[in-house]
């Protein structure tokens, strides 16, 4: 092996403008020298290996970012570059003061525009900048705020401008994202580079997250020792859902969706398994307009109807308050110096990106004349579709834009197009400069703001890209604020959890989470049982005959029919198709469809998909091992899905791998989630599903009497797919016969795979549900399980095995019993659903209107 010592510094070539490495005198800053010296010690091989470790760790922990309409699909892995972004504490001190000042100013603005509106009345801010911004919610005017600061969380995007100072480029006030990713970045980087991390004297972040927790507790409208706090997420499809789940589990608050909450009697309540729990504080990640379908966007299903009124009555605090999105407003930038003088009699500490608001004649004229040099934004829409880079527009497009600006000038702001600083990024084996933007965070703390000593650094994906955004790909960095002296290791000060709503109590489990856990159990059971049966059937199909011909034996025909019954993929082998070729004539093609066709309801692919959805929605309850195995399952399945013509052995191999991983996954669930965290619901779902499918299987295979040889094979198939063949041999040491098989598979009280055992377990589990009657009368969902259990206990295998009269081919008693059991379990499932997951009431508008926003 050649030595890999490289002189990083010499090979680092900046290509344009300002690089973080250098002082204005073109000398390398001391702290970067120090970092590079450490890198040299590690060497290039080690460094690239650590980057790989980092990628691995992030994917292990399931850190993802969803990109809407991304061909690569949801749950894109989060990218973190090994090289951190560095800032010395002396420089940070100024930035910090500037951020605190800006947070305070925005706080004043927020309070003013929803209150007196003196800024407008006194002409400090033109009325159009506020009234013309669609985030100004007139419904929120005059809403009282119980927190000391109106603005509780503030985030600013910072970038280093041409003058070498950090500039504010964006204000984020509605529901700023990034605090969770920042925490994850820090924990990953400090684990991957432990030595460097401790030698570089990096300021710790944990104090800041305690501030966050404290702020949420203090936000409670009535001063309680144990306020109930929840995190409101739009759901698992949201781009930053990972972070919502991450923060919820880090802070120890329930993660809820709009559907979990309800307004009654002027208060906000969470629907939990036990009943309604009053909520004091909501940390929301749902956008302003979606927060309350009664007063805001009528078509929103992400919010809670009546929420604003609860705020008005001072019975709940929303963090940040609904309506704060109006300050994500580049139109405010030109007026910020005036605002600073008006409220604080101060000058702005942090420079801002030069901006021209077109609502003013002079500015509009300048913008129209210099359009091709500027970046044009709308005051209330900072998404990329509405940002225009003048330099990339042709003359036709420029004219069009000019017309638009002339029509409604107040809606447009133009900003200088500048190149921000670059910093080194590890790209394969080289360090290359990349543009970056840093998101800094402030939290209201008493009468002041606490600033996170760090932030979320996002890096442009390639040399050419100057605009940086997660939606466009790119990567991130940890942000180190460096002290001169060694930083004392934080004692692991896990603060006292003071919320009485704990995420670890079954009673307080949000009903949506409970429902997801229940379905997680049902789907995992369904995938496992179906995969086993399909594997066995496919094996027989391969062994017995040419797989492209109609089966020539009863046993195969019955097996195939059972596949259809078990998966519910009718007509399949069970019924005559109304048109087209009959499945039974092309058994292999049909089997392939039942396994692979993800658009076919009931197919294995479809069930795996449902399984994935149910699990992703309870992401916050997972352990990292679970994530790894889950990813593995998805990977195995994905590569199989992509195969055009899988071979028979290929399919069998995939099914084997799927089954092994599923079993590992099920084991992990049981040890990663506590019963009181909701695992009970998972078990209930799992037992119900396994019971139901066992019944279906037995009914399809056993209720009709065939000739002895066929019957023998069918019993063997049943035992094989049930993973019970060895147990049978061990227990009965005999030729396989129906009555003992029924004893083992249906009636055994001790054998965990028998139906009686599972239903007994189900019976015990549902007693532990919060609304179960422990003493006297059984509840609606307990009764059918009790009845099912009793029927099984009263049944006798010999009677069940007999046909009703000689010469008959139907085992009437067995069929009747199985049918009754099937109905009883269905009833149980319905009753559990209506008792605990009552989301059946749809939210409707009194008058249906679509919202043209």
């Amino acid at each position, binding site marked *: 092996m050649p030595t890999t010592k490289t002189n990083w510094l010499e090979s680092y070539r900046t290509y344009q403008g300002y690089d973080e490495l250098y002082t204005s005198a073109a000398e390398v800053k001391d702290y970067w020298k120090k970092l590079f010296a450490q890198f040299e010690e590690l060497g290039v091989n080690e460094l690239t290996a650590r980057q790989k470790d980092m990628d691995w760790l992030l994917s292990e922990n399931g850190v993802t970012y969803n990109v809407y309409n991304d061909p690569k699909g949801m749950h894109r892995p989060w990218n973190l570059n090994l090289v951190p972004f560095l800032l010395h504490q002396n420089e940070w001190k100024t930035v910090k003061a500037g951020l605190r000042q800006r947070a305070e100013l925005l706080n004043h603005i927020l309070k003013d525009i929803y209150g007196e509106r003196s800024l407008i009345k006194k002409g400090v801010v033109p009325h159009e900048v506020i*009234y013309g911004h669609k985030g100004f919610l*007139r419904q929120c005017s005059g809403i009282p705020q119980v927190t000391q600061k109106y603005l509780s969380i503030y985030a600013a995007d910072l970038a280093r401008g041409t003058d070498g100072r950090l500039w504010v480029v964006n204000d984020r006030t509605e529901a700023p994202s990034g605090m969770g990713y920042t925490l994850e970045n820090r924990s990953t980087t400090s684990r991957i580079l432990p030595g460097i991390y401790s030698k570089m004297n990096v300021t710790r972040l944990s104090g800041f997250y305690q501030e966050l927790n404290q702020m949420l507790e203090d936000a409670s409208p009535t001063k309680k020792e144990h306020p109930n706090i929840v995190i409101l997420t739009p759901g698992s499809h949201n781009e930053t859902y990972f972070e919502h789940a991450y923060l919820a589990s880090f802070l120890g608050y329930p993660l809820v969706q709009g559907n979990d909450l309800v307004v*009654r009697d002027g208060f906000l309540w969470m629907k939990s398994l036990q009943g309604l729990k009053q909520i004091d504080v909501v940390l929301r990640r749902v956008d302003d307009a979606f927060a309350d379908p009664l007063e805001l966007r009528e078509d929103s299903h992400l919010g809670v109807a*009546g929420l604003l009124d609860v705020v008005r009555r001072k019975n709940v605090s929303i963090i940040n308050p609904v309506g704060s999105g109006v300050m994500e407003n580049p139109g405010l930038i030109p007026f910020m110096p005036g605002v600073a003088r008006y409220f604080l009699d101060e000058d702005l500490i942090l420079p801002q990106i030069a901006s021209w608001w077109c609502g003013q004649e002079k500015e509009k004229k300048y913008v129209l004349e210099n359009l091709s040099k500027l970046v044009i934004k709308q005051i209330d829409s900072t998404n990329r579709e509405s940002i225009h880079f003048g330099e990339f527009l042709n003359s036709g497009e420029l004219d069009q834009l000019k017309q638009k600006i002339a029509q409604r000038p107040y809606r447009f702001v133009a900003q200088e197009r500048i190149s921000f600083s670059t910093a080194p990024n590890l790209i394969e084996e080289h360090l290359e400069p990349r543009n970056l933007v840093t998101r800094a965070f402030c939290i209201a703390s008493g009468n002041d703001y606490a600033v996170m000593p760090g932030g979320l650094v996002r890096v442009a994906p390639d040399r050419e890209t100057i605009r940086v955004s997660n939606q466009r790909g790119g990567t991130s960095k940890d942000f180190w604020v460096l002290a001169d002296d060694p930083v004392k290791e934080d004692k692991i000060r896990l603060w006292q959890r003071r919320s009485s709503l704990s995420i670890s109590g079954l009673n307080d489990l949000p009903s949506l989470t409970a429902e997801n856990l229940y379905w997680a159990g049902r789907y995992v059971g369904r995938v496992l049982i179906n995969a086993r049966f399909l594997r066995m059937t496919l094996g027989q199909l391969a062994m017995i005959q040419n797989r492209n011909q109609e089966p020539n034996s009863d046993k195969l025909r019955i097996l195939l029919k059972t596949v259809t019954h078990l998966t519910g993929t009718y007509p399949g082998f069970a019924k005559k198709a109304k048109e087209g070729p009959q499945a039974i004539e092309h058994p292999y093609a049909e089997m392939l469809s039942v396994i692979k066709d993800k658009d076919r309801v009931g197919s294995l692919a479809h069930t795996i998909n449902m399984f994935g959805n149910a699990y992703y929605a309870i992401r916050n309850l997972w352990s990292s091992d679970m994530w790894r195995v889950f990813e593995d399952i998805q990977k195995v399945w994905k590569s199989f899905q992509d195969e055009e013509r899988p071979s028979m052995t290929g399919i069998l191999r995939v099914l084997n791998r799927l089954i092994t991983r599923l079993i590992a996954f099920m084991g992990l669930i049981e040890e990663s989630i506590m019963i009181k965290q909701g695992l009970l619901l998972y078990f209930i779902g799992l037992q119900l599903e396994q019971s139901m499918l066992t019944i279906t299987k037995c009914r399809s295979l056993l209720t009709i009497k065939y000739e002895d040889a066929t019957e023998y094979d069918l019993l063997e198939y049943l035992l094989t797919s049930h993973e019970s063949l060895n147990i049978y041999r061990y227990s009965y040491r005999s030729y396989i016969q129906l009555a003992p098989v029924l004893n083992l598979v249906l009636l055994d009280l001790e054998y965990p795979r028998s139906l009686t055992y599972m239903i007994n377990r189900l019976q015990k589990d549902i007693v532990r549900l919060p609304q179960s009657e422990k003493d006297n009368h059984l509840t609606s969902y307990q009764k059918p399980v009790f009845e099912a259990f009793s029927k099984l206990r009263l049944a006798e295998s010999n009677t069940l095995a007999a046909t009703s009269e000689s010469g008959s081919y139907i085992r009437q008693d067995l069929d009747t019993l199985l049918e009754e059991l099937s109905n009883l379990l269905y009833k149980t499932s319905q009753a559990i659903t209506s008792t605990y997951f009552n989301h059946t009431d749809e*939210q409707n*508008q009194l*008058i249906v209107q679509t919202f043209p926003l």
Partner: protein
Amino acid sequence: MLFNVTHITKYKYDAPVSYGHNMATLRPRESMGQELLDYKIAITPEPSETSERLDFFGNYITRFSMQTEHEELKVKTQSRVKRDYGRYRDQFFSPACKNITMDQALATLNSTEPEILEAKQFTLESTFIRKTDKGILEYAQKSFQGNRSVFEASFELMQRIYTDFDFVSGFTTISTPINEVMQEKKGVCQDFAQIAIACIRSMGLPAKYISGYIETLPPPGEEKLVGADASHAWFAIFIPGFGWVDFDPTNNQIPLDQHIVVGWGRDYYDVPPLKGVVYGSGTSKLKVSVDIARME
């Protein structure tokens, strides 16, 4: 003139509603030349709670919640209103109002007088009146010119809408885009009011949407039918230097005493008589009746 207004709204659900939150803008607000002498609201089934507040524009909002299962919701309001707006009519036609040209009006709008500032927000886009196209602008330009009286231009705009547009109920819904209404030239009073507002705003002048009632008179010799009256909507333009003037493009007249104001806002979205979110699985049927009885 003194009126007793009875406004009944009924929702019949085809499946029981377990609970719901509702908001009503039904209580007539304070307004120039209008006094509310008495007001009652009755809701069945009895709501679990009711509260009233003033919104951003000064309208009365009644908010109520139903928490018991019900299949029908009935909201009945009774308002006794005194209208004396007719006496301002002459002022509108006075030189103080009529002589203000659009150029003057636009210049006056640059002032930061509280009254002007308050009115100026009504020049901006709003929820339903936004992204208006050339069709609107060109339609407005036919009446509004720099050196022409704003009042006369508005009067003419009202007349043109009355003549050019057909009153066709059911053709539009509240969410039909304004540009489409302009193309089709069909609609109901809400649409006509919003078309006028869009036109005025395209000129840079403030205009607001007024929701209320209008007394209808039976054809000569016939009895007036109870419930034949209706909710109504019109617009007002702000003439800087003079004030707000109402116009009713549906009836081609300046509203006088037969128009009763309930509330106003930037467009229909700000003042829907009743809206709500209900939880249930079915759909609902709506029935509205308004009766305006002239007392003196």
